[in-house]
């Protein structure tokens, strides 16, 4: 599933980033990488999402969020 499809507050793991390479790379540099654990903390207008990663909050517009694949972390790992 993608970030916009994820429920608020659920613990997620990033499994794919389908952004253009340069932007995917920047996302990496900012700390959002494959395997990164994240929580969606806020739904915003037009599909925008705020996610929590390692204490930081990242705002992603709806189109960008839709290109980030995640899976739920089912149990406390």
């Amino acid at each position, binding site marked *: 599933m993608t970030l916009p499809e994820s429920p608020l*507050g659920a*613990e997620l*793991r*990033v499994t794919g980033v389908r*952004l253009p*390479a*340069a*932007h995917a*790379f*920047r*996302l*990496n*540099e*900012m*700390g*959002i*990488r*494959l*395997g*990164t*654990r*994240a*929580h969606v*903390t*806020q*739904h*915003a*207008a*037009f599909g*925008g999402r*705020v996610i*929590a*990663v*390692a*204490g*930081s*909050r*990242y*705002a*992603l*517009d*709806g*189109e*960008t969020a839709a*290109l980030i694949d995640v899976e739920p972390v089912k149990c*406390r*790992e």
Partner: protein
Amino acid sequence: MSCHAPASVRVLGRSPIATMPDVLRVLLVGGPNVGKSTLFNALTGARQHTTNAPGTTVELATGTWRTAARDTREPATEHAIVDLPGTYSLLALSADEQVTADAVRELEQSSAEVTSQPGVAVVVLDATALPRSLYLLAQVAGTGVPIVVALTMLDLAEAATDSATTAAEPQTLAATLGAILGVPVIPVDARNRADGGLQELADAVHEVAAYPRRVTGIAPLATSCGGTTGTVAQQDNGKPGDGAGGSKAELGTVRVVRPDSAVPDLAEELAHAETLFGWVERVVEQVTTGRGPDDEAPAGASGPSHGPLHRTFSDRVDTVLLNPWAGIPVFLSVVWLLFELTTKFAAPLQGAIGQLVNGPLASVVTWLFGLLGLGDSWVQGLLVDGVLVGVGTVLTFLPVMAVMFASLGVLEDSGYLARAAFVADRAMRSLGLDGRSLLPLIIGFGCNLPALAATRTLPSARQRLLTGLLIPLTSCSARLTVYVLLASAFFPQHAGTVIFAMYLVSVLLVLGGGLLLRRTAFRDVHAGPLMLVLPPYQRPHLRTLGMSVRLRVGSFVARAGKIIVLTMIFVWALMAVPVTGQHSVGDVPVADSLYYSVASGIAPVLAPAGFGNDHAAAALMTGFVAKEVVVGSFAQSYAVAAPNDPARAGNLGAQLRASFDGSSGGHGGAAALAFMVFVLAYTPCVAALAEQRRLFGWRPTASALGVQLAGAWALAVLVFQVGSRL
């Protein structure tokens, strides 16, 4: 990672380093919103100025950092310091980031030269977001420049509930990091009235300048990228050492390649970045757990670590401010508040200052000239009607600029500005602009000057420039008086509709102008994915805010103010020189002045738009100085009293109808509409132009002025030619 910047970014031939004085050079490097500029202001005080980075429109603050000597017998030392644009990475994605990357690279080169003055990079680390900050530190360290780390946001890190440094005591965290990194790590709180760690930072910079230290675990390349391969990810995991500095084996040694090659290879960059991420994770792990790199990690912890979610105060506030339904109304309310503050709140202060300068102050100066026997001389005219009017104009803008800078400072410091960019992102995306552009564009409908000042909140220089070129197309309130006068005089039954239409035209011009510029001179500006770090909400610090407002207002007075005063003197000279009749210099009726003669020369150019008469041309020339005085200029040129209420133009309205009918072949209404469109589009006032020049330089300002004049003329001709045929 290969050693290069993405091909889309121009690699500059020079960096800010080249323009710095030949003393110890200090670069402030860090991510956005890490407190870098606050630190810079605290270090330099008033000894700073803003310039554009060589060959760019990227604004840089440079200054002198005066550090006291420990020994009172020694003099204070001065360093040249520059506040580089915030970036998450030295692999630049924008011109602003490229300036930072170039500066670090040039510091590295100049540091390597024996004859050159040493330089130190002060890398600012955000304690609430250590992993992201450490990645940039690793890149800077990889260039081999001497490094001191300034650790900021410690108060927020202490209060945070889910960051890597949760509940860490500042000094302990700094000491731990310093031991792990092997370079001085100084906790700083630049907002603190006491030293806030600034003396310790100065000592560390002195020490590192004399005895350069390297970040443990990051080995710089000895060769450049030009003809060598980019060595990546060489690690030798050793046992955790004492961390006192120097044990590269402790964290594994990562070789960093310089970001200055011309051949992009993202896959290689990503592979190398992974090694840096690994280094970052090992550092964070040691900070938080003390576990060494060879210790077994907990099961399932294959990805970057992340604990359970703790909802913070900022999360709770964001449930309202970023709510899909409430977020946009809240944003519009904030913009409305700014609009009101810069117009209604500042207006009485502007009026009071204007009355003081033009009333008592002018009277006193005139009286003094009388005492000196120079009453009614051209010298008095120059000083009272030229210099004093210019200074008065600058002073009247101070309240509105101060209010704007303070308001923006509050929005920025509180953390809301980043949210505004997020909320308004969709609205500005079609123009390729950041969501934050909406804020200055709306403020422009109040006054273009503070709106231009508000562009400083935009993260990219190109976006700042594009927004700054569109702002003059927003119909400021000063233009409203012209609309009211002409609409009431020519369309008394539909004045409201005409005025509303002018605002609609203004919006269309902004959109049309934006789209046109995007397809021509700004093809490189496009809205990429919005990936924005939201800083935690915090209370703005009044002292820091006050200092920032003082410095920015001072910069406006020093740079834009000079141009305003000179322009006023020039206008006075035009009005003071007689070309017809028997008059002495400085005592000339407007109709006999050089000013009016120039207006007469311009009038034929305006004939295709239907308002090719001397009165209209003279009013437009006056409008270049300030739109507020167009009504007065009309009254002066028709030799009638200026109406207190432009909606009741009286005799002036009759005069206007007569001259516009005369110059348009009986289509006065169409000519009036064309005139209003021209006033909307031809040029902002001289103060706004001076601010544009201050922010963007002469060339973009002059080019924009030329394009606007031509565009306004074409639009006015179109309106008149179509209107007169209906």
